């Protein structure tokens, strides 16, 4: 029996309709917007006029924007490997045992992921706050002076800690689930060949974990490029630069300056940048894979 050709499209129609309105149209609209610049003529109100690629030229010379990109790169280069290594190590530890304690640890590690990033930001904001931080209280009890976690030079790493706190457990569970899916006869075979302990991890577990690791890394990369809520809620509590991440800078351009066309330009550049980085990363890992 042959089904009419329209059937799959009918099933797809609600998704495609919403997808066009909330994904395709905004991207195209942002591209359109980015072609306009705000111009002030004499004493008159600012007007939007066609500016071609003027906004893009401005972005590449905008040291605040460049600085935010460099910031997030610095952040990613340090935070992502640290978090993924932690997550992998703990997934491996948990995978090699079973029992009641194991369930407790899994739940404890995963719990931070259930906390909205705004709330995580608030929570850590208090823990960082100079006068009420329990870390500083402990440090003072031990004769130290306490630290300013929200000082402009360390706040990026304080944010990195919040992100690590939120996502390590989530990534660990993803990797742990992948390890649990490895068929046990593979282990049997390896054991007969005399592989055990570290060898088992190195030659069986890690290679089979590779696809999940790639996924975890890609999602971490995309997430890092979009960090917004944490610095946003930390701002009232300490000194957080406006351009600490590309998104906080972009929000400032839109909300303070009301310059939506330039903000749209920055959003497009950020998207392109994410695409390029993910592409390079995927290319890099694909070449590594077949061995």
């Amino acid at each position, binding site marked *: *029996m042959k*089904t009419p050709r329209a*059937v799959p499209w009918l*099933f*797809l129609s*609600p*998704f495609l309709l919403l*997808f066009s*309105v909330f*994904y395709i*149209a*905004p*991207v195209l*609209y942002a591209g359109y*917007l980015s072609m306009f610049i705000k111009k002030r003529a004499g004493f008159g109100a600012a007007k939007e006029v066609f500016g071609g690629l003027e906004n893009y030229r401005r972005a590449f010379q905008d040291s605040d924007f460049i600085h935010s990109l460099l910031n997030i790169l610095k952040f990613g280069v340090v935070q992502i490997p640290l978090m993924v290594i*932690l997550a992998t190590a*703990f997934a491996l*530890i948990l995978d*090699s*045992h*079973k029992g009641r*304690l194991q369930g*407790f640890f899994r*739940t*404890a*590690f995963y*719990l*931070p992921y*259930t906390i909205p*990033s*705004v*709330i995580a930001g608030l*929570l850590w*904001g208090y823990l960082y706050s100079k006068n009420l931080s329990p870390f500083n*209280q402990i440090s003072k009890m031990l004769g130290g002076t306490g630290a300013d976690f929200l000082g402009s030079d360390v706040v990026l790493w304080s944010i990195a800690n919040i992100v690590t706190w939120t996502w390590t*457990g989530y990534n660990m569970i*993803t990797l742990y*689930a*992948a390890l649990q*899916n*490895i068929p046990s006869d593979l282990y049997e075979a390896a054991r007969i060949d005399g592989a055990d302990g570290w060898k088992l991890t190195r030659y069986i577990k890690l290679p089979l974990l590779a*696809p*999940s690791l790639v*996924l975890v890394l890609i999602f971490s990369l995309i997430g890092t490029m979009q960090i*917004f*809520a944490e610095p*946003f*809620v930390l*701002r*009232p*509590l300490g000194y957080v630069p406006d351009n600490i991440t590309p*998104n906080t800078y972009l*929000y400032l351009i839109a909300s303070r300056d009301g310059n*939506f066309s330039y*903000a*749209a330009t920055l*959003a*497009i550049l950020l*998207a392109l940048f*994410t695409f390029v980085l993910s592409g390079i990363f995927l290319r890099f890992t694909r070449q590594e894979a077949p061995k």
Partner: protein
Amino acid sequence: MSVTRTRFSPLQLLALTALAIYSLLPLWWLIVTIFKDNGQLFSTFGLWFSSPSHLSENLHTLFTRQDGIFSRWIMNSFLYSGATALGSVLVSAMAGYAFSAYEFRGKDALFSLILATIMVPATALVLPIFLMMQKLGLLNTYWAVILPGLVNPFGLYLMRLFWDSSFPKELMEAARIDGAGEWTIFQRLGLPLVRSGLVTVGLFAFVTAWNNFFLPLVAVSRDDLFPLTLGLSVWNQTSSSSGQEPLYTVIALGALISILPLVIAFLTLGRYWQGGVADGAVKG
């Protein structure tokens, strides 16, 4: 399956305990803090209780401040997340079914295009969506927060994996021979088979909507439309600025209440939270 059944070595146990403390410490601080007033917050040790308890005052302030708007925020969060979850499950289930059960022209290209949009930063979408909604007069409505969340490429991806693995295509043929229509096959035969997928994707959409901050931040400016995340963030901003009564412990209580639904959902529906993501990676 795991192999060894031995106990954790002391070193492993130490590492596990350290990470558990790291994960739970902020939550412990939160629980301790909701019993304090601002004076105690600054004068007593942050990681332990102090008497007398001020929980009832904090509760009173939390639920009566600004005419009890906090209850409204709780309701809003449930409304936004519930509607988003239900809607996006239906939309993703149908679309995932189309990709899994049918062959059609351009299928692979379309699927890749949809997946590629996972990489588009939310800001790149939210900004133009804000302007579009402004033109349509949708700002400051419930729709402004719900509609964009109904379409979720990652939800579709997950849903397709569930259809691929739990819905045998021979079943379709058999049902067609019995004269069942395509919608009936999907609804009566298919949906029950991917039930765990529906829960996983629904939960994922619920959590994403509950945690969403950027969209409500730009889409609603009337405080009676705020979700919990936005409301608490605004209180944090206003109470930190000078000349206002500090609200730290009240906000802490609000924060704890705002995470309770997700923590409960996680502890009761735990097994649905993980699935999918890793399965897909191993298969793919």
